[in-house]
């Protein structure tokens, strides 16, 4: 009997981008009939013309077909019962790998051999319908995840209890808060009992309490001796749940080691960092339309795109995006959090009342929203930028909690004369004044009064 759960051999997947319109739109891969028809009609013509003028070297001007190997020659084996972590930056191929293993999409090259029933959790709440009640969605979602009807009925009570939404179970889920919705969705998924479980970033959503619950459930699953492939950006979750981890970069498997070593490699090799993040078509949910995020980058005081900015210089965050239709009340902004998940601030591009008035309705088009973080503001350390594009109380178009991360180098930061660690995410140079209080009885010169001047 083989002890292998998954064997992946030379797996590769190529995506074509910008083939027709040269756009980064997430729908770039479909043709319109016109293109096909025009192609069919003009092909012989072009061929004729080309052969006629071939001596003159007329360029056929073929549109450039740009391709990206989302996964490139990846091979690995997962023994039965192992919990394997998969890490890598956005666009490294993690999701593509999971999509292939769960048979959502096909590889272009190579193959994967899977021993046992696979349950894949690329998203929670797949197929949930807003008009259906919680109860109805449990049944439907269970069937979509591959549970038998009898199995769903048997676990129904357990699922409802786990979701903590008993009171609203006969209410259409469109009336649920996002927290309730997620809890219900995860509750169904958590009761899936496949031999091999493939999990993508499902823990990156929801509040802290929800995440704790998910992680608890995941570690139960891991302890039951099932094979799990677990993708996450959350290094502490990876460290806690997995024994071994593979690191992907630009579609290639670059490292495989026991988890602590792999995480260390990933964090220190610069893989986690480039100072720029381009959203791939498959990272943008269709629900984001008409908002299409394109690039987020960070520039240092000299305008270079860098991963590390100096605390003593300004840093500029640029968010590039396209609107295919005008949006009323759109605000594009960022959350800044530290690597220890402390929130530093939240800021939107229309915070300023003047901007807010000027962009009440943002017309369709390409935009860059730029934000400058002042010099002498952030403490040294690693920061994560999350972005959010929404219309307040109307709709959230797009959110990426981990859009980009960067380092702040504290050289010459305020107070560098003492080589000590300063607490807190900010390290501002505040306006201090020192002045002698009344020329009094205090003869001790060390005794000074500190005046905090804002």
């Amino acid at each position, binding site marked *: *009997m083989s002890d292998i759960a998954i064997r992946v051999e030379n797996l590769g997947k190529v*995506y074509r981008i910008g083939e027709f319109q040269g756009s980064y739109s997430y729908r770039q*891969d*479909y*043709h*319109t*009939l016109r293109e*096909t028809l025009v192609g069919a009609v003009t092909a012989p013509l072009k061929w004729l013309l080309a052969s006629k003028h071939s001596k003159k070297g007329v360029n056929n001007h073929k549109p450039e077909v740009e391709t990206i190997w989302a996964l490139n020659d990846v091979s690995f084996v997962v023994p*039965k019962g192992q919990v394997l972590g998969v890490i890598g930056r956005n666009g490294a191929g993690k999701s593509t790998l999971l*999509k*292939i*293993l*769960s*048979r*959502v*999409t*096909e*590889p272009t*090259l*190579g*193959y*994967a*051999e*899977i*021993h046992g029933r*696979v349950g*894949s959790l*690329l*998203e929670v709440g*797949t*197929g949930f*319908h807003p*008009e*259906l009640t919680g109860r*109805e969605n449990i*049944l*439907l979602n269970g*069937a*979509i*995840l*591959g549970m*038998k*009807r009898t199995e769903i009925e048997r676990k129904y009570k*357990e699922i409802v*209890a*786990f979701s903590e939404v008993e009171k609203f179970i006969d209410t*259409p889920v469109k009336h649920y808060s996002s927290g309730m919705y997620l809890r219900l969705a995860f509750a169904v998924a*958590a*009761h899936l*009992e496949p*031999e091999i479980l493939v999990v993508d970033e499902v823990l990156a959503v929801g509040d802290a309490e929800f995440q704790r*619950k998910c992680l*608890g459930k995941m*570690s*139960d*699953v891991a302890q039951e*001796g*099932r094979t799990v492939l677990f993708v996450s950006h959350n290094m502490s979750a990876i460290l806690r749940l997995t024994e071994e981890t593979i690191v992907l970069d630009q579609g290639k498997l670059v490292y495989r080691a026991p988890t602590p070593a792999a995480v260390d490699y990933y964090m220190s090799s610069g893989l986690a960092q480039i100072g720029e993040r381009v959203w791939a078509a*498959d990272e943008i949910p*269709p629900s984001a339309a008409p908002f299409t995020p394109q690039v987020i980058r960070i520039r240092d005081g000299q305008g270079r795109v860098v991963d590390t900015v100096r605390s003593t210089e300004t840093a500029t965050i640029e968010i590039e995006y396209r609107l295919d239709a005008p949006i009323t009340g759109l605000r594009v902004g960022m959350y800044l959090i530290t690597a220890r998940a402390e929130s530093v601030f939240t800021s939107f591009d229309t915070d300023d009342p003047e901007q807010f008035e000027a962009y009440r309705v943002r017309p369709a088009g390409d935009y860059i929203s730029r934000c400058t973080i002042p010099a002498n503001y952030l403490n040294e350390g690693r920061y994560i930028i999350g972005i959010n594009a929404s219309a307040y109380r109307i709709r959230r178009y797009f959110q990426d909690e981990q859009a980009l991360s960067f380092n702040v180098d504290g050289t010459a930061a305020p107070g560098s004369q003492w080589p000590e660690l300063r607490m807190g995410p900010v390290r501002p140079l505040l306006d201090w004044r020192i002045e002698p209080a009344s020329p009094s009885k205090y003869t001790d010169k060390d005794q000074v009064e500190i005046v905090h001047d804002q």
Partner: protein
Amino acid sequence: MSETILPKNTSKTKPNEEVLFVRPSSGWAALNLMELWKYRELTYFLIWRDIKVRYKQTVLGAAWAIIQPFFTMVVFTIFFGKLAKVPSDNVPYPIFSYTGLLPWGLFAAALTNAGRSLVGNRAMITKIYFPRLAIPLASVLSGLVDFAIAFVILIAMMFYYHFIPQEGYEFYLTPAILTLPLFILLALITALGVGLWLSALTVIYRDFNYIVPFLTQFWLFITPVAYSASMLPKKWALIFALNPMTGVVEGFRWALLGTDTAPGPMVAVSSTIAIIVLITGLFYFRRMEHTFADKV
């Protein structure tokens, strides 16, 4: 931490465990209908969802299933029956057109729903594996409920015209009514065949979003719903039957209204075409299936 303890996975070390190979497919794929059968519960749930959702939040709910064909019948009766005096094979024009509108409604809904079914279920297709055939299949089959509701009106009309005979018309039940299930099946085969083609084509060419409404309208005119196939020159009848809906509609009338049009040859031609459309549709769908997740 463990709110719920799952039963220990008694890892059955079966001598011949299921091994799945994931590899690039090329060319024509096998139909693999066995797999679809394995996922029959999912198909069932998708049908159930379609039906549940369809009339939620509508004021009149399932009454729409009756209103649409009924008022079309009224309009047809006024304009074609009374004004244009279209002959109706010796049965009262209202029941004549309604009998045609029933299978037509099933077919037209299948065209519209199946056509956009894959795109409409994008979220599922890009996140979960299941035989994609389940989606257009469910959207075609869910139309049967509307069909059944609309059928109630037909039964009422049949009673009405049976007990209150109209002058100059004859209408009576014949044993041919026993063949009705076969014609319903033929309607489903036709609808599914065309639906499969359209659903796959819509994923690849979004133009079909615009083509389908136009196609449906056009198709209604070449199908003998408002008029009778017996109006056509005999020699054209079989060419006319190349439209599989011709056989379906004429068959319905023959089975339900006892018209003596003997649509045998027409039904034979229509059935053949319907089966060809279904089989080619299945193969085309299966061939394109592996690209859906990337293109939808």
